[in-house]
């Protein structure tokens, strides 16, 4: 019974993450982490697992959102090399950081994101 409930919870997580990513073009990730923690994942696992879910969903949403004119590849290429370096550093940090500190940082990020959405 518990396994069936967990499966339903995971399907529900996906519905929420997909709907937010689809409707806003992004933002699904902000919900993915707390939803995955609710299902029982530890913070580090929730943060890393959320990437595996949101990356393909973001790619799919981009098909709906963007015509080829909106996808500015040459501009994006300026940021990718150091973005990849950052990703490597971030991956190491995620492995080493405490769950408590990760939760606090994420909470601050959510507040800042919310303020930005409302006021900018």
């Amino acid at each position: 019974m518990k396994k069936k409930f967990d499966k339903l919870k995971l399907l529900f997580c996906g519905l929420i993450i997909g709907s937010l990513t689809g409707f806003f073009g992004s933002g699904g990730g902000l919900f993915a982490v707390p939803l995955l923690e609710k299902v029982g994942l530890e913070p580090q696992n929730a943060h890393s697992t959320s990437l595996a879910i949101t990356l393909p969903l973001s790619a799919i949403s981009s098909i709906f959102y963007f015509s080829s004119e909106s996808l500015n590849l040459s501009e994006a290429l300026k940021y990718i090399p150091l973005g990849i370096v950052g990703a490597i550093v971030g991956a190491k940090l995620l492995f080493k950081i405490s769950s408590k500190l990760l939760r606090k940082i994420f909470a601050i990020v959510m507040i800042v994101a919310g303020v930005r959405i409302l006021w900018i």
Partner: protein
Amino acid sequence: MDLIVISVVAFLSGIMASMGLGGGMILILYLTAIKNLEQLSAQGINIIFFIPVGIIAIILHSKRKLIKWKQVFLPLVSGVVSVCLFAFLATKVKSDFLKNAFGVFIIIMGIISLFKKNKKS
């Protein structure tokens, strides 16, 4: 100077994206507020940025066994359905009210998370 700013923005966005902290926020904010790009353009650039950065992060997290792959499949299945539906809906409806509601909701969630006590393991 521009090169330094781009480098810092890209590096920080990569770190945050890799940690599942929403790295797109920094990049999109820079592109819209400083480079004065349209929101849609900025989101497009962010998605292109996120794909290789996200793939690298997923590979590294997977090697460290941080990703719980069993918990990826079901959310992806339902997520694919809802992302298609809601992306389609987004092109049909005015999103300002929902956008503001979303902003308020995640601020509240952030505040609750900030003051939430850690679960004892």
